[in-house]
């Protein structure tokens, strides 16, 4: 029996597949020969029994938050809802093979070398912001060296998209000849681990996710979403539960994309 592995699958599908595997482990598959080592099928079975069930400890991954200068009138600054980051970290640890560390890390654009220790950085806030020239320069350098920046609009008073717009505008300063463009729904980032046909939307304005693409390879260097995925990670009670789950899945996809591209 060969298990065909899709590049990503939805949770119900995975649940169903798990049931099948559990049934096999319970004895239904006892009449069939044991799967060969080195195959995906073997790995799936091993992951339910014995040592294969343990998560493989691998290279460390941090989920740092970017500290940046927000405007005074903005009520929630760059450090809004760290519990959202923590919950996503836990989900990533639970759902994937990524050795993500729970340790919270904050980086800022004043200290480029420190920031470059972390090739993935997350930023969020509610309102408009302007990057000083030095930060623009450092961000350009960070992204050109291979860093990845994910930005999410925390949505001011549940309606605005000021942060989203400001991010797109500021990125135009970072790469004047390479503006951000909408990320199409069939982009790999929506299906690399979980199959999502669109960007989840929690609240605010449902603008298209925008990406900064490498001009040579097409790789995403940075992306911004307007739908407050970060609040979905927190799981606020006023938000749609399914969308909250999808926001977690999208968060996982973004990290997996960063680690595979």
């Amino acid at each position, binding site marked *: 029996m060969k298990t065909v592995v899709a*590049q990503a699958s939805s949770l119900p599908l995975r649940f169903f597949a798990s049931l099948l595997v559990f049934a096999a482990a319970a004895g239904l598959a006892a009449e069939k020969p044991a799967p060969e080592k080195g195959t995906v099928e073997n790995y*799936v079975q091993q992951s339910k029994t014995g040592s294969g069930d343990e998560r493989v400890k691998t290279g460390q991954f941090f989920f740092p938050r970017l500290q940046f200068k927000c405007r005074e009138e903005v009520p929630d600054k760059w450090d809004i809802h760290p519990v959202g980051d923590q919950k996503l970290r836990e989900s990533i640890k639970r759902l994937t093979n990524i050795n993500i560390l729970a340790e919270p890390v904050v980086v800022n654009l004043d200290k480029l070398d420190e920031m470059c220790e972390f090739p993935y950085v997350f930023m969020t806030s509610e309102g408009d912001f302007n990057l000083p020239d030095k930060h623009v320069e450092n961000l350009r350098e960070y992204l050109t060296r*291979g860093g990845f920046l994910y930005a999410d609009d925390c949505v001011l008073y549940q309606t605005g998209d000021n942060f989203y717009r400001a991010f797109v505008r500021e990125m135009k300063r970072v790469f004047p000849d390479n503006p951000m463009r909408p990320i199409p729904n069939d982009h790999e980032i929506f299906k690399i681990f979980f199959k999502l046909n669109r960007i989840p939307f929690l609240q605010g304005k449902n603008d298209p996710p925008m990406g900064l693409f490498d001009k040579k390879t097409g790789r995403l260097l940075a992306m911004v979403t307007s739908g407050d995925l970060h609040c979905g990670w927190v799981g606020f009670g006023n938000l749609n539960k399914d969308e909250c789950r999808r926001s977690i899945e999208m968060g996982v996809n973004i990290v997996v994309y960063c680690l595979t591209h």
Partner: protein
Amino acid sequence: MFEWLFKYPLHAYREGELGLAHSLRPELLLLALALAAGGAWWIYRRESRPPQGWRRYLLPALRALGLALVVLALLGPVLRFTKKDEQRAIYAVGVDVSTSMNVKDGASGTTRFERAKTVLGGDGKLLEQLAEHGEVRLFTVGSQCRPASHEQFAALKTPADSQTCLAQGLKELSQMLRGLPVEGVVLLTDGIETTSSDPAAMARMLAARGGHVHCIGFGEKQGLPDLQIVDIRAPRVAERDSLVSMSVQVRRSNVQEPVRVRLYHETELIKEEEVPFEPGANLSDARLSFIAEGEGPTKFKVELPAAQGEQVLDNNARLVEIDVKETRVEVLVVEGSPRHEYAFVRRTMADNKHFKLVTLLRLGKGHYYKRADDDSFLTEGFPETAEQLGRFKAIILSDIESSYFTPEQLKLIVDFVKVRGGGLLMLGGENSFNLGGYQSTPIADLLPVHLTGAGEAFEDEKFVMQVTREGADDEILRLSGNADENIAQWNLMPPLKGYNPLYAAKPGAAVLAKHPKPGPDGRQSVVLAVQEVGAGRTGVFAAANSWRWAMLRPASDDTYRRFWSQTIRWLAAGSKELLSVSVDTRVAGVGQPVTLTANVLDKRHRPYNEAKVVAHIKDGFGNTDELKLTWILREEGVYQALYRPPHAGDYTIAVEAQVESTTLDALTSLATIETSPELNRIDMDSALLTRIANEGKGVVDLEGRADKVLEFVRENAKNRSRMLDLVEEKELRDAPILLLLVCAAWFAEWIIRRRSGLA
């Protein structure tokens, strides 16, 4: 009656002396006679009625006598006459007609050849004076020895032979004059022998036959300023846009000024370096590193600008051809988990069109990220057949434990390296090396380090990799052509973070980089090591976070990219194509034999000896030669043929190999130029000429004059009668007396046996 019995009259026997044509050592002759006598006696002893009384001695003696006479006849009895013939003394005069004789180093600006002609027929009158003592025969000596008439020789203005084979010339000369009384051989040459044969040995052989070999040398013994490119070591094939390193060996003679070497691509100067100079050493190596541009067979010209007072410039420049290719190296990465290390390696490869990364990455439970053009490929995990795996040139095992693979898959990896010639690289991680359980697998035998067992935990500390001297010269870590600069540049690199402690490199491994701090037993842990295994190559890079070299250096720094592209190129370099074709030199001289070699493998990458291999060699005019390559018995799957390019120019060589039902094809090229090893050195080789004369029992004159030689000839002529004994031999094998004596002995034996009732 005497003459009838003995073939020649009695006086002939008085004048001559008896001997044997086939000389046999006396003890062997006696042994043969004793065997004949013993055999005859033994035969009589075995008879049922052995002879009695005096007959028991006489009968074996008669039979032995008959046998002895037969043996004597077989050894060829001769009557030897020695005659004196003073008029038949032969003097052979060989004149060097190679291109080095065109060097103008005479006081009056004349060439060596012009001066040799003067010695022969002008003021020296060598030919005329030799003719007073015997018959003079004239030869030209170059790549071959050829007889020449005086008129032909006089008409020759400029020697053009591309080689000087003095040893071969003396050999051919002695063969042409075989049986003749060669009194002397006179060579007029600069002594620049271009082959590895020893002409002094041939001179010794001629002297053993009674001749004398004299040398008249032309040219400066020492002192001419000269620069020469002795050798160029460069890769025959280079990837486009890769850093190519070329080593140029330069000989400087009597040049004290700084020497620079220039590299041209077509007419464009692309690199210039000063040739290192060590006082007392006349050979030195200059290294030229450059980025290979263009595509296909590309000619580069290496040139040494003329030194002050240098006269011979033909040896200051050489062409070298490098096949600049733009191939895609397909690499299989098996990654145990998503981590930055993979992402950055992939980005490096994605930036570089020479690489194609196929990935099997374990994302989570039952989740794989696979990246391949063919969607069905790798769906079922790691390849399970040699054919599937053979598609790749290198495999990278990145933080993946050994239990992921079946024993059969591990065996496939071993064959992939040893037989297919693929590359295998294991990266550091918490599931690599000992921590991944590889110490008890066949993979451990492939790696350049000993996996000593469990208990060596992954170290998470930061460290700056310490490049070894060996690493500083190695192509993997090469950032500059200079080893010291290389080390300095690597010392500036940001620290890595995390490594697997590996303390024991295998004896055949090259340790390119180490951890800076000694481990518990004082040894430094190996960070980067490589070795060749079977047909392939393996390496370990025990660090886990090389991406830090990308993130913590300015974006403009391409060290990280170069490290990975050079590493993977090195790994993949040994991988075999099913058909690979090479020529033993990419730039050959016209007419120089070039060996064309094809390596043929079957689809399992095993050598195949039953192929039909044909080369279609096309010159620049569109003419095509067809050449069949045959399997050389001493090496599996290797086919060869010799080709002599008939004229200068570029040749395209398309080789087809029929392997079972598949036709494989491969291309290579050959450039042919008018070249001459004659100018490898231009000073007269006085040592060789002296040695030839010494071994040849003759005299040498290194000033280009004939006086010494003529004086020797005159002195020797006085004793010529002793030297010119002509020996004539007359056969006696068919003299009737021999037959009669044999018949008489055996007839007498028969009569006595009959009378005694024994027959």
